[in-house]
């Protein structure tokens, strides 16, 4: 394998630079794009680390890092990116209720893609050891449901995708990920050093990202509020609620939003993407309609899967109402502006 070429400014583009620009300044958002490619980068309990020097001047770790590569193209499509169709929806199946984040749309779409063999395996995020979110590979509906619900903490799930791509197997893959992970995936797909990504990743379901938290900090905060991991589900109700809701072991807890916000990854401040613009389908909360999702179909593949789910009666769909789309666009636009301001302050922040 020929290592990726050094950048035109002749600076190294490998682990050393990733450490200098992203990891050591504390800007890593734990997406996992750099993980699973080599043994030098490790992930434990929600944190990326590099115990030893890798010794190469260029590497995929830097090329794929969404924080290091920020500021490129892809933001010319408007605040919420390309959209073929905008919907509000929810799953009709009873077994999803209470287990899923909002409407269960992500779980249902992914389960359908697996059942239809559009993909044979998917990488999602689920709670692992010590409650720490981490990537898991699932191949059927039960596995998908096991990972349902969000805890808003980085889990390095792309590590598992890299692991799957390195295996001597050609089956198609899906990813459910945050905007940073979707952005990293686009870099992977575009990389000549990683041809498996473009060949094998057939479905990307992106999530709207309200906040991404370092798991260790969140666990500490939860412990101080008497919440023991693992947590089943968490949510940020819309303003002016000012709280972080947590369901854990059958109990419900509320944490002050400011305490939670103070924990968030510094590296997220420079992220311009609220809605996972590079995904086939993007899914998030539907403001003012608890139990429903907002769904953005961005590609024909995504739109096709959504149509199939509706045809099969798995999802109940309605066109997104203009007011809520306007609200989403405003929120995405505000995120763009915050990111631009943060980027001026810190080029990679």
């Amino acid at each position: 394998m020929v290592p990726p070429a050094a950048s035109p400014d002749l600076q190294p583009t490998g682990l050393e630079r990733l450490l200098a620009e992203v990891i050591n300044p504390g800007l890593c958002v734990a997406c996992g794009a750099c993980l699973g490619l080599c043994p030098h980068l490790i992930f434990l309990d929600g944190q990326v680390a590099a115990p030893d020097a890798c010794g190469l001047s260029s590497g995929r770790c830097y090329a794929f890092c969404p924080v290091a590569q920020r500021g490129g193209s892809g933001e010319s499509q408007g605040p919420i990116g390309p959209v073929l169709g905008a919907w509000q929806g929810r799953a009709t199946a009873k077994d999803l209720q209470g287990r899923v984040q909002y409407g269960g749309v992500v779980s249902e779409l992914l389960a359908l893609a697996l059942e239809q063999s559009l993909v044979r395996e998917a990488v999602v995020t689920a709670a692992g050891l010590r409650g720490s979110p981490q990537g898991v590979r699932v191949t059927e509906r039960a596995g998908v449901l096991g990972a349902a619900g969000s805890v808003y903490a980085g889990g390095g799930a792309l590590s598992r995708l890299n692991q799957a791509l390195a295996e001597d197997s050609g089956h198609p893959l899906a990813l459910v990920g945050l905007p940073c992970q979707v952005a990293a995936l686009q870099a992977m797909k575009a990389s000549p050093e990683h041809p498996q990504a473009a060949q094998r990743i057939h479905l990307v379901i992106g999530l709207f990202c309200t906040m991404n938290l370092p798991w260790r900090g969140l666990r500490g905060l939860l412990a101080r509020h008497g919440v023991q991991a693992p947590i089943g589900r968490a949510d940020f109700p819309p303003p002016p609620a000012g709280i972080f809701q947590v369901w854990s072991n059958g109990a419900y807890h509320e944490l002050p939003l400011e305490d939670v916000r103070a924990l968030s990854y510094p590296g997220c401040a420079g992220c311009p993407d609220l809605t996972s613009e590079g995904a086939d389908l993007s899914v998030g909360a539907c403001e003012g309609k608890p139990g429903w999702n907002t769904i953005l179909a961005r590609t024909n593949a995504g739109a096709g899967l959504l149509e199939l789910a509706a045809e099969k009666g798995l999802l109940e769909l309605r066109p997104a109402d203009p007011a809520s789309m306007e609200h989403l666009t405003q929120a995405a636009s505000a995120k763009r502006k915050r990111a631009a301001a943060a980027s001026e302050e810190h080029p990679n922040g």
Partner: protein
Amino acid sequence: MADVSKLTPGQKVLLQGNEAIARGALEAGVSLAAAYPGNPSSEILQTLADSAHSAGIYVEWSTNEKVALESAAAASYAGLRGMASMKQNGVNVAQDFICNLTISGIKGGLVLVTCDDPSGVSSTNEQDARFIARVACLPLLEPATPAECLSMMKLAFELSEEIGNLVVLRGLARLSHTRAGVTPGPLPEAKPRPHWDPNERWFTIPVVPKHQVMLDKLAQAGKILTAAGVNYYDGPVRPELLVIASGSSRLYADEARRLVGANERVGILHMGATWPLDQELILEHLARAEKILFAEEVDPHLESGVKSIYAQQVRELGLKDFYGQETGHKPPIGELSPSRVAGALADILGLPWQETDPSYLEKAKAAQALVAPRQVGFCPGCPHRASYWSMKQVLAADGREGIVSGDIGCYTMGVLPTGYQRVNAVHCMGSGPGIASGLGKLRGQGLEQPVISVVGDSTFFHAALPALVNARWNNSDYVLVVLDNSATAMTGFQPHPGTGATAMGQAGTVVDVEQVCAGLGLPYAVVDPYDLEATQEALYDALQIGGGLRVLIFRRTCALVQGKQGGHPWRMSVDPELCRGEDCGCNRFCTRVFRCPGLVFDAATGKATVDEVVCVGCGVCAQICPAGAIQARPKEATA
């Protein structure tokens, strides 16, 4: 070691210095010998242990040097002869007892043997243990040859009994392991039955009068040593240069004067007894020479002592030129050698001297090119490599700049690249948990770094226990990792309390590390360091808990012991199709970062390969290969 009790009296044999010390002790009628292993002293006790049954004596590996000397003192109080042997570091451990023992006195002959290690070849320091003679006012003997080792041991026991105090015999690494002809004498016919006369009491008060008694004993010892003739002069009546030397340096001085062709100009005052110094003899020889050079290792013990004697008589003796550490003619650090002494002689006498023939240097350079460069490192399959690997990984992932407080044993090499330089401090036996205990109490003042103390199983019993009790008592926050390889490996696989074996081969009682931890109320868990994932999970979790001392026992028998017990189960190989070599995704991770000597990088193919001669088949490297190219198969299946 050989059973030296079976040597035939009068029949000359080749003996190592340490074996000769053991034989000397047997000829002196020693009844109890105890020691804690430590190079270069270890063979003394092992020789005695291997001779114990036929000699009818008791020999033990003790938990530490202080306990060893205390056990030997017990024999003395029971009317028998006892001895304790140790390396220079051990004298420090025993020092508190020594400094009180010298005041209370002893009954049966009691000898402390210290084997010093100039240059610290197998030690953490190159301390000169002769200090103890001055500090504790003890007679000090310094043999130069194995034959003197034997004769001086006998003298030491007699002297000890005569003055009623401990006597110190100082060996050196070169002497301990040198072999030379020794003619053994007879062994004693019978030894007394042990009995402590209840009317005899041994303690240090009243201190001042007993202090005077101690000084009187030393003065008495001086007279006995003068009469014994262990100090003697060899050279012209009025030498141009007088060398005052002790220990191995006496031989170096003799060789040096031949090397520079100055036999007729240089005299050597051989000091076999170096405390107290024979003032009369020294003054006699100072009067006959204008120039005086000191040859000794490591500290200027003779140099300062002789200059002090000279200062008292300077009006009579007139001005002299002294050469030694003060003038740079004796190095203040490192071992001495014949050529170093020859260089000093040549400089003082104005003689030509070339330390090494240039043609020899050329040949040496050529020979060096044939030898692969090597670093000091853990053996192939050593569990410590796996243990430090896991510590490195976990501390990096933990991200709080964790500190590892090291200790004494093979695992001291954690400070070197072989242990990924993961150890932040190493001092003496047991100091690792002590330092960790202090660090673990700085939380209140803002110390956020996690703290690990690593300690071997033998060190755990030697000196770690008080520090652990301290940490438990004061609620210090750290993780103790016991690197339990079921051996005192670095010094030669001597047994220790955790193994339950004893020096004389009889079964002792196993002192279980887990039970000790449980008894101290310490939470503990046992993991196999060969299982990297389980080890790292356990260590990471232990670091996260916080709040007090908790223990992880990394248990895996020393690779060399496993080898003797039938070997490791795996035959390792590298699949060249899977090995990624120097590409992104690996870049020689196994041979560049993990660095077990059993793995080598084949530059011709650009792939890693297993050196089957070196690899023992522990299987650990298969767990670190990112491509699954390093494969472990059961040996039986591939045989």
